[in-house]
């Protein structure tokens, strides 16, 4: 029984990667909106873009990690 519950939990944890996708899309979309308005300032902000993407993406990876732990380590 516990094994099945862990699998359900793993599936629920995987929903988190969807929310991380929303975050990543937000970062990239806002960057693009700003970059198209002022293309000359865009090149200087790519580093910030990647840092933002990494922060947003890391939380999705945490969700993935939790579901992996539930699948195989619990």
């Amino acid at each position: 029984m516990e094994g099945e519950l862990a699998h359900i939990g793993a599936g629920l944890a995987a929903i988190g990667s969807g929310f991380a996708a929303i975050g990543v899309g937000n970062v990239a979309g806002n960057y693009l909106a700003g970059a198209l308005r002022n293309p000359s300032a865009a090149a200087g902000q790519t580093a910030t873009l990647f840092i933002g993407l990494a922060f947003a993406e890391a939380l999705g990876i945490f969700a993935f990690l939790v579901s992996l732990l539930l699948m195989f380590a619990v």
Partner: protein
Amino acid sequence: MTQVAIEPETKGGLVFHPLDQFIVKPAFGDGAVNWYTVTNLTVWMGIILLAIFAVFVLGSRGRAIIPSRVQSIGELMYGFIYKMIEDITGKDGVKYFPYIMTLFVFILFANFIALIPMSYSPTSMIAVTATLGFGSFVAITILGFVKHGASFLKLFWMSDAPLFLRPIIAVIEVISYLVRPVSLSIRLGGNIAAGHVVLKVFAGFAALAVASPAAILGIIAIYGLEVLVAGIQAYVFTILICVYLKDALHPHH
């Protein structure tokens, strides 16, 4: 990832062992893994070091005015990281260029060599990435205290905020500071591990005759994405180390 023992399941036609690729086992012969055992992880780390040596030492040995192809790869990476440190940490961060360059080159080569089929990916092990992340974190924190003494703690004390809010913000700042190495190491390890798991899952689908054309196209697409991720994760790791180094060198906002 951590060492996960998986029972072989042989029910049905589809057999998925997406996490078997991360098992650490002795490279030569069988037996228990001790601290001195040469494992597949050790072997692939050695290959990575040899590749770095080949590009940066043997490739640039001529020191030609007109660089050869291998030498220009090395020069491009060198210039890229140098400019990154200068832009983010400022002139006084250039002193720490060798360490940051080492980090970047090791992670980049590890990520790319891990994409060779049948290879082992060291950066997907939390043990490896946590060593890099926590090592850098401890070094940078010590550096901050050595450079600024107790006034390094002003990093957590926002002098712009209203007085009654400052203790609360300080607590939050300390927590976010302490979480940095965790997120740094799990981001790198998790990204690489997740990519390899996805590749293996698609490879499992390829065993089904109906799904195999789609699966092969999927593998090609995901592989391209993984090449991108391998570069971006090395870049992000290094740039975050640069940002943290800047905090240690200039803690006053």
